[in-house]
């Protein structure tokens, strides 16, 4: 390799790309994930009906069974909304909340983990004690409690306006300790390496050293955790919405759709709940498979 390569070419030449190409599971789940993400992101343009626009919904169209009419591929629900379109728009909300929650928890986790590991001492002890306290509880319960407390503490009209942000915050805050612990562990190793000492000798500030020198070297494992957290965040959001304490009903997510459909399960209209549920499982499963593959691909011990 005498010729210098561009970033893209270097990526296509890397071990990671090779391991991706040769793993059928990874390729298949990437395809499924792409379909899910594409359908969700492009919902306003691709969906056959605009389900968020109440004016376009007609009660006369209610309870159409699936696979009978071409415009209503997956049938319609009790309000006459097209299930396929609802699933696409619902996936959009689920994905949006999931990604924002993961970004939030990753930023909080990395910042706190880096600070704890680099500064050590009292700051470290305090932050890790906080993580310990939170880790006493399962993440799902923390998200539920934060969401429940916000619901009780905020006035109703305020809560309705920022409900989506509350859910993102609740889910994000529930997963920061795992990330912070990982980052702290790798920071403790990096802190004593020579390049950090050198940076300190030439008089760089702690902030600068942490952000530009240590940070890039501790991000590897975070990528894997973040991917696996995405699946978890989507499930948590769906579960909260299923319980009726998640996203507001004006912006239904896949979990909300399953909850609506659940009421019609006993009377035989199974498609209203089953299709959103399947879309949810497909999305989460593909993300989890990709995360699993990524963990193995980035772990040199397993190669």
């Amino acid at each position, binding site marked *: 390799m005498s010729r210098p390569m561009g970033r893209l070419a270097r990526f296509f030449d890397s071990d990671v790309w090779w391991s991706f190409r040769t793993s059928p599971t990874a390729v298949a789940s990437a395809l499924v994930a792409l379909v899910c993400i594409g359908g969700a992101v492009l919902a306003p343009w691709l969906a056959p009906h605009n389900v968020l626009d109440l004016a376009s919904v007609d009660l006369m169209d209610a309870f159409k069974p699936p696979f009978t009419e071409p415009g209503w591929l997956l049938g319609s629900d009790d309000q006459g909304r097209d299930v396929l379109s609802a699933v696409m728009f619902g996936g959009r909300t689920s994905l949006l909340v999931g990604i924002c929650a993961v970004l939030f928890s990753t930023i909080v986790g990395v910042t706190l983990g880096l600070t704890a590991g680099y500064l050590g001492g009292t700051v470290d002890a305090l932050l890790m004690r906080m993580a310990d306290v939170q880790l006493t509880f399962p993440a799902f319960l923390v998200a539920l409690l934060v969401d*429940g407390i916000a619901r009780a503490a905020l006035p109703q009209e305020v809560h309705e306006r920022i409900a989506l942000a509350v859910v993102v915050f609740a889910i994000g805050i529930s997963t920061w300790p795992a990330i912070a612990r990982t980052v702290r562990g790798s920071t403790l190793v990096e802190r004593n390496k020579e390049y950090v000492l050198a940076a300190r000798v030439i008089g760089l500030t702690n902030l600068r050293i942490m952000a530009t020198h240590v940070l890039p070297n501790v991000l590897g494992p975070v990528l894997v955790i973040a991917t696996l957290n995405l699946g978890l965040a989507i499930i948590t959001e769906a579960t909260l919405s299923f319980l*009726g304490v998640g996203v507001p009903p004006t912006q239904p997510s896949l*979990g909300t759709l399953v909850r609506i459909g659940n009421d019609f399960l006993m009377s035989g209209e199974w498609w209203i709940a089953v299709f959103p549920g399947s879309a949810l499982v497909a999305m989460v499963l593909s993300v989890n498979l990709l995360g699993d593959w990524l963990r193995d691909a980035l772990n040199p011990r397993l190669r």
Partner: protein
Amino acid sequence: MVAFVISRLLQALPVLLVVALVSFALFTFVGDPVAAMLSQDATLADRENLIRLLGLDQPWYVQFWKFVGNALQGEFGLSYRLSRPVSALIAERAPATLELAFCAAAMTLCIGVPLGIFTGIYKDSWVSRVLLTVSLVGVSLPIFVLGMLLILVFAVQLGWLPSFGRGDTVQIGWWSSGLLTVSGLKALILPAITLAVFQLTLITRLVRAEMLEVLRTDYIKFARARGLSNRAINFGHALKNTLVPVITIAGLQLGGIIAFAIVTETVFQWPGMGFLFIQSVGAADIPVMAAYLLLISLVFVVINLGVDLLYYLVDPRLRAQR
């Protein structure tokens, strides 16, 4: 040993203190109990009187101290939603949740651990591969979707099992048990499976990973060189050393089961504490929320403490350090 237990207890205290503070803050700062309790035509003097009666004129740390004192005696006031003492509500619902959680936990351990051992020992057989793939689906399957599918198949289509409720129960003192009647047992099957599957897949994968790790070590190779039977190696030597992490995770899973019982109870309308909690969150019924919060944290702290102590008993290295 005593020092170890005491240090663990001291570590558990801050958790309970934080939770108690959160519950207290909920009680004190969310909503206005005085406005809720006074009638429309109450005078300002009535208001002053009530505030003094409730002790709301005292500094917050005095109020907090009283709150903790009451909580220790199981006294959480009246539910806003149902106008009944919270302690009675919870005592009434606890048996349902505990029976469900216990059955799910038993299922998880009795099926998950053997499956993990099997897939660890026979890691290349096709049965293991199929089990692992299925377990990944299990991890990705939200608990409410699974419950819904089970209801669809076994309650709606086949009509074999009930889709909601607890069936007939038998009263033993204050405990109401559904384990002693046929309809109670039938009603328990679907919720218990729903609750167990996710934890089961996790524990299978964990035991497998630990088994693989241990089977690679030198002392196992040495045992093989000594000509010991496979059975003696797998169960006598390897399994014992996989148990330490498994105990931690099993403890965490017990917590997970209690947390996710909220979801399962909602899907199956199981009359337990979780269902009560979700209804309280929906109605902003703060006394019930605060009581549930404190109770469940106590459970989690006890579980973590138990796990630490088990660790101490199982792992001789921890004892040797002291």
